[in-house]
């Protein structure tokens, strides 16, 4: 009797396994936790969108993977049958590339990197262009004409976001000064609070940031009664319901579906894929309760102009803090130029080094 039950169960498991044969096994590793209301959550949510829209896909997922252990985790995912991998952190670029060389039949998609291989492509959102909108909103909302920006590290993409924030604000309010502060770490919550307090004491009444997760910043701004613009996940809004103006979320779910489909069909090609608001790679969030209708209208107008291409945030002439022309008259910086920022625009207070 017992044996019959066991055999029956085994047969059932076998049938289920056959029925559940996945159309594709997709793996992702992230460097932080999936609920950080920040960068890692954005990646995870895109993966979950893929799972939802393509139920035949099997998902492998690992969080808190240090860069030094990335190769081992990716290898184990491949051993479990993964054919599409998202090493979803900038620092995974070289480890993932090493694994890619050993497994030419597995496709890798890396966020924000600059290296390509036959089975290794990259994707990212044109964040800097969208960040201009947060600047427009900040420029309209500030009463003190001082706005603050907190960066984790003074790298090109952070400087680019700060420049976009400032240029957007200046476009609607020529008196704005932007104060730029670097914490020196992507995650150090206590220091992020200290940086926010330093900016608030300086008189800044709108704060933007480029950190792994701005939760602590958002809560500090909320407690001080000032304004906040969110990035890189819209999930941060719940931490600052009153301070919230609007924000940007990295939204790659539909793109992941597109890539998975290409891998299944065998049509995938390696490329640097950079898209923006127009393709849904980044989404402007809803407005907070303290934002007047007039401000919403202007921000949405700028959004339309950005999407249509009528507005180019990085069109010259743009000068740096010393007054040197960095983007000449008639010159326009596009998505692939965003890694070139090693300067801050005229009117920003702070050091780009």
């Amino acid at each position, binding site marked *: 009797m017992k044996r019959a039950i066991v055999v029956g169960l085994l047969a059932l498991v076998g049938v289920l396994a056959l029925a559940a044969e996945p159309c594709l096994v997709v793996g992702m590793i992230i460097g932080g936790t999936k609920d950080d209301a920040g960068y890692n959550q954005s990646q995870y949510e895109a993966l979950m969108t893929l799972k939802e829209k393509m139920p035949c896909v099997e998902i492998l997922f690992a969080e808190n993977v240090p860069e030094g252990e990335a190769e081992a985790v990716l290898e184990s995912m491949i051993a479990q049958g993964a054919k599409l991998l998202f090493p979803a952190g900038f620092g995974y670029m070289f480890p993932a590339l090493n694994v890619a060389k050993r497994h030419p039949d597995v496709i890798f998609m890396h966020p924000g990197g600059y290296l390509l291989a036959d089975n290794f492509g990259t994707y990212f959102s044109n964040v800097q262009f969208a960040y201009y909108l947060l600047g427009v909103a900040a420029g309209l909302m500030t009463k003190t004409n001082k706005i603050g920006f907190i960066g984790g590290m003074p790298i090109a993409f952070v400087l680019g976001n700060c420049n976009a924030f400032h240029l957007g604000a200046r476009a609607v309010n020529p008196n704005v000064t932007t104060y730029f502060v670097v914490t020196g770490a992507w995650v150090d919550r*206590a220091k992020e609070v200290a940086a926010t307090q330093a900016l608030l004491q300086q008189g800044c009444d709108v704060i933007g940031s480029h950190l792994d997760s701005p*939760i602590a910043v958002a809560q500090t701004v909320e407690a001080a009664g000032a304004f906040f613009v969110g990035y890189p996940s819209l999930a941060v809004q719940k931490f600052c319901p009153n301070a919230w103006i609007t924000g940007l979320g990295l939204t790659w779910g539909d793109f992941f579906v597109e890539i998975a489909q290409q891998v299944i069909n065998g049509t995938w090609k390696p490329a640097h894929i950079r898209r923006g608001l127009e393709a849904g790679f980044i989404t402007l969030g809803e407005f907070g309760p303290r934002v007047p209708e007039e401000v919403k209208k202007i921000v949405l107008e700028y959004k339309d102009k950005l999407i249509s291409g009528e507005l180019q945030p990085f069109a010259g002439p743009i000068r740096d803090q010393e007054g040197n022309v960095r983007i000449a008259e008639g010159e326009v910086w596009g998505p692939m130029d965003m890694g070139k920022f090693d300067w801050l625009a005229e009117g920003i207070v702070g050091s780009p080094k």
Partner: protein
Amino acid sequence: MSWFLSWLSGAILYAAPILYPTLGEVVEQRTGMVNLGLEGLMLLGASISFAVSFITKNPWLGILAAIGTGLVANLVYAWLVVHRNASQLAAGLALMFFGIGMSALVGKPYVGQMAAYLPKYPLLGSQSLIFRYDLLVFLAFFLAPVVWFFLFRTRWGLKLRAVGESPAIAYAAGVSPGLVRYLAAAFAGICAALGGAHLSIGITGTWSEGMTAGRGFIAIALVIFSRWNPLRAIVGALVFGGAVVLQLQLQAQGIGISAFLMDMIPYVLTVLVLLVWGRGVRHVAPASLGRVYFGTE
């Protein structure tokens, strides 16, 4: 002047989470125990206080939970060191790694959550952004002179320091070195966990893995910096807290110094202090520090 006040306000706030573990470690080292596990204890305090505060919506219960956690975890360390005669360095490192892992496990469901904060009491009126502190800040600066008085002005303190100088002689004088070390470890565990709790439910209102960012090790350096004196520990903690705030404020004022250069200030200061006071340190450090006491036959 207003600039100085806002710097001082920040320095005091960020000194508190370092002052707690430093005070605990001063007492512990005065009994001859080096505890390298502070970072782990702080993380445990941070995550468990946050979790309890999240579940019960009561930050005071979070504080109680941190106290209990720090107490139990550090008594395990004391048991290893006192009863099992384990190497203090190894036991401390084990405690550190245990704390890092355990706090991540406990805190996992609470990443990206909001918990009840400790209430803030504005000293300069409700409009002022500066000098708004929670109770743990006041307690930290109150605790330091109390610990100093206990160590240097009471018989109990004398016995405690005697154990740190020579457990055998203390034993001969009728003091139980094991008991004293257990009590000191209990106090140190509570202190370190409170420092961690202050970071999660006092200052930031969030939990993230490894959020102490090395403050447990800064505290160990501060014990040497303060030459095992709780009052000098206040100075040390203010210097460290002040350096963090100063570098961010200088940036916000557009003083174009690299953030990374500024981040080195605390460590450069420690090296300088060790250079200046270095010769004295040997005479101040408890004589039995780090040694295993096997008991007296």
